[in-house]
């Protein structure tokens, strides 16, 4: 790909770093947007991730200047991925179907996750490490009891 003029790599890098900063700060300030908080997180975290990936592909990987077959290869694989996602999503997103149901108690899963959470329990325990192991061990005992 020596036949094309290189873009300013430093300029692309600076844009990437600014986008990265926005993707970190965005979710932190999202609660200030009230009802739109979730949309702000999705936009700043995932929308920007797609934008960053595009910049890396187009300019650092030179896909913008590559022969058309390379993007076709990548798009073909990406399409297969969407087939996989939507093919399995029809099963995975439902909790029951013909002759099957998922016996999952989300409330109990949240309680288990909270019990072993280092972040939620760090104020009430001096030694973080001991707490984490303790919580995990308790969970293991529960499993054995079942």
């Amino acid at each position: 790909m020596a036949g094309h003029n290189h873009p300013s790599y430093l300029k692309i890098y600076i844009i990437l770093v600014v986008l990265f900063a926005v993707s970190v700060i965005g979710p932190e300030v999202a609660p200030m947007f009230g009802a739109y908080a979730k949309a702000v997180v999705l936009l700043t975290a995932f929308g920007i991730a797609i934008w960053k990936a595009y910049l890396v592909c187009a300019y650092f990987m030179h896909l913008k200047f590559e022969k058309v077959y390379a993007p076709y290869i990548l798009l073909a694989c990406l399409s297969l991925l969407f087939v996989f996602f939507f093919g399995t999503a029809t099963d995975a997103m439902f909790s029951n179907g013909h002759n099957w149901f998922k016996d999952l108690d989300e409330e109990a899963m949240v309680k288990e996750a909270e019990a072993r959470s280092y972040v939620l329990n760090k104020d009430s325990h001096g030694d973080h490490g001991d707490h984490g192991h303790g919580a995990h061990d308790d969970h293991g005992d529960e499993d054995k009891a079942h």
Partner: protein
Amino acid sequence: MAHQIIATGRSRTGIPTGRLAVWWVIGSEILIFGGLIASYLLNRFNHGPSWSVEAANTNTFIGACNTFWLLTSSLFVVYAHAASERRDAAKTRMWIWLTILLGGFFMGFKTYEYATEIHHGFTLFTSNFWSFYYTATGLHGFHVLCGMVILALIAERDVKHEKNWHRVENIGLYWHFVDIVWIFLFPLMYIAK
């Protein structure tokens, strides 16, 4: 013995053989990492509350530092490619080794992060979230490690002896892809809590 013919280009696509092979590798990697990420998303949609509590335990600062190392290493490897096109062996090797250095930073931070999480009781078998976390980031870390080894081999076996310059671009494509995977893993594992 007859002269061995090595196909250096594919006339149908107009893309050199090595580079075309790397595009196919990246295509297959899209399915590997994409499949993992798609499965993660399906689970996240189904178990939002519990996975949210689990995700709160990941270290955003370390994740952010690792994103910065990889973004910067992407710039360095593209500089190495530009230097290789000028056939400047010294500069190419310098940028390649700086890329490896940042890859080392990434692996160092990741190791510290893993050690801390395991110390707090979060292992591969703690829950579905942690299984996905260790599988996705572990597989990615393995790709970073492989990239570092290949970069070092190209710097010392090819660029040093001013041969096989095209390999710099090929490993660069792979390295950028590894960066792109982390661009998606970072918000999934560290930001969306």
